[in-house]
């Protein structure tokens, strides 16, 4: 089975700073992969490279066997990749429902003519988008807030809304940038359940996270970065006991503690 995501020799340089240094990474379909590492280790940069926001300095990224190089991000979305942001980039003046509906934009057509003249095709598509959005909202537990403006949501629910917006297009790969950031333990617990349900829908998940409980609980495999380089990769148990990983997080002394 071809991996959903194949990263080879990925390098990204910003001027003199090497943010990502020769990283290799393959993710299989249906996997939940976590990317961890201390602050500044290049995790978000990797996500930006995969989703087409940055262009790599060197190396290749293949999504479903096709290179993502030089493709504008919305095209990658159309091909089945979705991502969330660390800082919950929502459409604040749109309602929760409308936010999720935008998530289906890449999979729909709805041209100007059909909209202005209320042609049946456009109306039918609009109804379909609305229904799908309602369904996704129910899936993540936000249906009661459907008409609330996104800016009025509490923080934890904003993160959920972002995930919902990512889910609606049934992506092949879902990139999550610190989904648990700012969540309390009970919200994190619900997130673990939700991620499991997402995986059960056949969606491959690639997430960046700092919350180690979440990571250990839900991941199939973990890749560890430090200073832009991959220093370890394996199952949660293997990574937990890896000396280099411990050293990266806690410093050299901890290794010998």
């Amino acid at each position, binding site marked *: 089975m071809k991996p959903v995501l194949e990263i080879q020799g990925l390098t990204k340089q910003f001027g003199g700073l090497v943010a990502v240094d020769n990283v290799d990474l393959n993710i299989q379909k249906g996997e939940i992969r976590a990317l961890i590492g201390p602050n500044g280790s290049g995790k*978000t940069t990797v996500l*930006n490279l995969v989703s087409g*926001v*940055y262009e790599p300095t060197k190396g290749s990224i293949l999504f479903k066997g096709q290179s993502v190089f030089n493709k504008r991000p919305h095209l990658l979305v159309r091909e089945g990749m979705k991502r969330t*942001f660390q800082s919950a980039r929502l459409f604040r003046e749109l309602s929760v429902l409308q936010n999720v509906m935008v998530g289906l934009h890449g999979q729909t057509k709805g041209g100007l003519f059909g909209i202005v003249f209320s042609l049946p095709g456009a109306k039918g598509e609009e109804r379909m988008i609305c229904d799908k959005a309602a369904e996704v909202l129910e899936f993540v537990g936000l249906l009661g807030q459907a008409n609330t403006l996104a800016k009025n949501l509490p923080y934890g629910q904003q993160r959920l809304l972002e995930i919902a917006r990512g889910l609606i297009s049934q992506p092949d790969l879902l990139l999550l940038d610190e989904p648990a950031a700012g969540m309390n333990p009970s919200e994190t617990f619900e997130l673990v359940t939700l991620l499991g349900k997402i995986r059960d829908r056949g969606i491959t998940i690639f997430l960046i996270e700092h919350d180690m409980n979440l990571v250990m609980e839900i991941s199939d495999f973990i890749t560890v970065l430090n200073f832009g380089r991959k220093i370890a990769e394996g199952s949660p148990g293997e990574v937990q006991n890896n000396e280099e990983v411990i050293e990266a997080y806690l410093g050299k002394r901890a290794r010998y503690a």
Partner: protein
Amino acid sequence: MFDFTTLAQFLVAGLAMGSVYAFVALSFALLYNAVGILNFCVGEFVMVPGFIVAILLNSLHMPFLQAYLITIGVMLVFGAIFHRTIYHPLRGRPFLSVLVSTIGASLFLKNTALLAFGADPRVTPGIVAQKSVGLFGVFVAPQYLVILATLLVLVVFQYVVFEKTLLGKKMQAAAQDRDMARLLGIPVDKIILITFIYSAVLGGIAGILLAPVFYVTSDMGFRIALKAFASSIVGGLGSIPGAIVGGLFIGVVELFCAAYISATYKDVFAFIILIAVLLLRPQGFFGEKVAEKA
């Protein structure tokens, strides 16, 4: 037409106009740097002192130095009022709000000036006699030399203040990273107020320099503002030296184009340069990166 004398005269005239543009561009760039706003009212920062100095000199027959000092003083207050009424209530809002608000301020000021001062253009006498001065065999208007000298003084003054004094360092810090500066105990709000005042004073200087060689009218602000925008963009929107270099550049290029290509379209050249730069190299000579990061 292309002999040394003519070229040199054009160059001096261009640099002189360019210096005025540099002052205005500096006023504009400082505010952009400090609080990220596009001050559409920057032309009125020049028009208002222009009228004030004209009235003081022409109608009240004040001595030059007194008139200039009062004008600068008025601009000091003007800058503070502008900060308090236009910027301060809108800090933290998206930049579009402040921009539109400065458009409103510009409308208000320019029409109020028309109502208060009338439509007759004003000119003031220059601080030095306006007889052409011979410089290396070239005859130039003395006011041009005054303008150039003032710019030189300002550049030195600003360099000293920004780089060598504590206040200057605080201003730079506040401009680069407001939150960090606050954490370091820098009184950022006060610094921003000072920046507005300084910006207004720069406009005042530009107005004073301009009044002897340019007609002061209530609607002059717009054309001046456009030159300021063009100068800042050419020099690089985030850059202080860029504003000065950009201003001089626009002044010289504009003059030469007017002289050798077409005088009627004189103002067009600055805008053509503006558009060209925006399309080809939006960061100008020294400016910040224009693309957005994730």
